[in-house]
């Protein structure tokens, strides 16, 4: 398998593994510009979540840098009455997982 295809397969597998966890409602991968590149949700939800969360991640990052310019975001967890959104930022992408925490 070419390197590209192998990486692609790994990503698919990881997504499937996360998706199969109890309570996971959706997974979105967003690139550094806030554009969703992969999602298990419908288009409308994907676009909405991506835009809102991109804004939130930018804000979290600037909050941390204002406190300490040497510091950076490693994880973000936003819990609400109905679900929990977990955001794992990476250099070029961020992974968003929406789950029902009580499941």
């Amino acid at each position, binding site marked *: 398998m070419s390197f590209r295809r192998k990486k692609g397969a790994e990503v698919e597998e990881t997504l499937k593994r996360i998706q199969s966890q109890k309570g996971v409602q959706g997974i979105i991968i967003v690139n550094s510009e806030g554009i969703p590149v992969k999602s298990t949700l419908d288009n409308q*939800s994907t676009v*909405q979540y991506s835009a809102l969360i991109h804004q939130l991640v930018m804000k979290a990052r600037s*909050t941390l840098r204002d406190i300490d310019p040497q*510091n950076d975001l490693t994880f973000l*967890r936003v819990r609400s009455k*109905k*679900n929990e959104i977990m955001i794992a930022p990476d250099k070029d992408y961020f992974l968003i997982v929406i789950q029902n925490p009580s499941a």
Partner: protein
Amino acid sequence: MTILYFSLYHFIIEGHKGVIGTIIVNSEGLPIRTTLDNSTTSLYARLLRSFTTLARSAVRDVDPQNDLTFVRIRSKKQEILVAPENNFLLIVIQNPSE
């Protein structure tokens, strides 16, 4: 009632290992209790109030019936927990857990 609840939380949390500081911010954005120095407190209070507002509106934009209950911002050097309650904020800054 909320102030009592928060103050209790404050005392309990402060004893925990790894907690760097706790701040309670009132509905006007003013820190009313803190274990940190004044300038650090004001900085955290201002920044996190602003962040929490954004997080709350993001949650409500997706579902107006939903509401924010907790925020956890993890960074390389520390972890910031924010619990909003009745427009008050309880902020806990701690060492990032392993």
